[in-house]
């Protein structure tokens, strides 16, 4: 088991840069997903009215396992649009 860190880590993704409304579709990038050892992030679709529910077209990245972040900052270095911030 991974030890709890004192003080919580905060990870935010700027959806205006990466996501359904952003410049980048995360499905074409996936750099943060691959770079993070744990991995902390999840790639998932967003449910949007009128979208094909069997083949959705809106995707985004969400930090899910935030408590496992080692604060290595590699995701920040690798993100082409600076969409990620990690703080504590």
């Amino acid at each position, binding site marked *: 088991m991974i030890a709890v860190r004192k003080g919580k880590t905060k990870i935010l993704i700027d959806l205006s840069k990466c996501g359904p409304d952003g410049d980048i579709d995360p499905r074409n990038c996936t750099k943060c997903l691959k770079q993070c050892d744990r991995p902390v992030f999840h790639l998932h679709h967003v449910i949007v009215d009128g979208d094909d529910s069997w083949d959705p077209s809106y995707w985004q990245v969400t930090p899910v*396992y935030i408590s496992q972040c080692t604060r290595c900052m590699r995701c920040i270095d690798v993100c082409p649009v600076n969409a990620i911030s990690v703080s504590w």
Partner: protein
Amino acid sequence: MCEWCLKHGDGGKWYFNARNYQKELAEETNAVEHLNDILKVFDRSGVTPVYGMKFAGSGYKLQTPIVGRVVKRIINRVLHNEGPKRKHIGVDGHFGQVLPIEDASYIIENLATEPLTLNYCVCRYMCRGEKDARCLIFGVHSEIVDKIPRYIPENVKRPMDREEATRMLESFSEQGLVSTVWFHPVPFISAICSCENPDCMGIRMRHDYDIGLLYKAEYVIQFNPDLCEGLRACVSACQFGALSFSPTKDMVNVDLDKCYGCGNCRNACQHNALTLVPRNDIKQVAGRY
């Protein structure tokens, strides 16, 4: 035998009970409806609130002793829910167990209902954005996934016959992946996956947060120190960190509490120092899945 064997094993292991694969049971458990609802949003399972609880970011809670225990108990109840009112959101009634390649091959050769198809792994896509064809699914499950383009691999024969599917599974095991068999929904069995730590959600939940989404195998590793030559090849074969190398003893140390009983380390050992034995024969880990 674990609690699932007692409930759904008909006297044996749950995943060797032929009834758990059959169409009649799929109908009884509403498997089609369940799979239709769940598979559409499966890659959202890490971010969907289940009964008001959201997994995203709740890791801190799970890791604090008292709060964590309560939350885990609630989540386990949801996962193991067999009631008629279970909702088809999140992962209700979705449960799996690690199994050695021999057992996995036996299921594909004898028990799994056709059509058998190989599909892109949802977990790896969620965690790594990587499309990797690793999940063997059977029967009605295959028919539903046929509707979901993002799970259907290119250049893979669809459906496969039993022999091809078994060979696939064996090659995954040789690559070091861990076979797991899944209720979907309990007690209907519809998938054998080839997973790794930490890219598999099931392994992750169990290994990092001790949530009962995945049980350890019915087996555990037995180490024969007389045969170990200290080559350490097995150490890197274990996905769960159960093996380590001791330079002082010039042989391997085994942590039985960490062993999931997948048997992959056996492939790496040239001296047959590692064998699988039934979990319940070893007092230290008996009944601890």
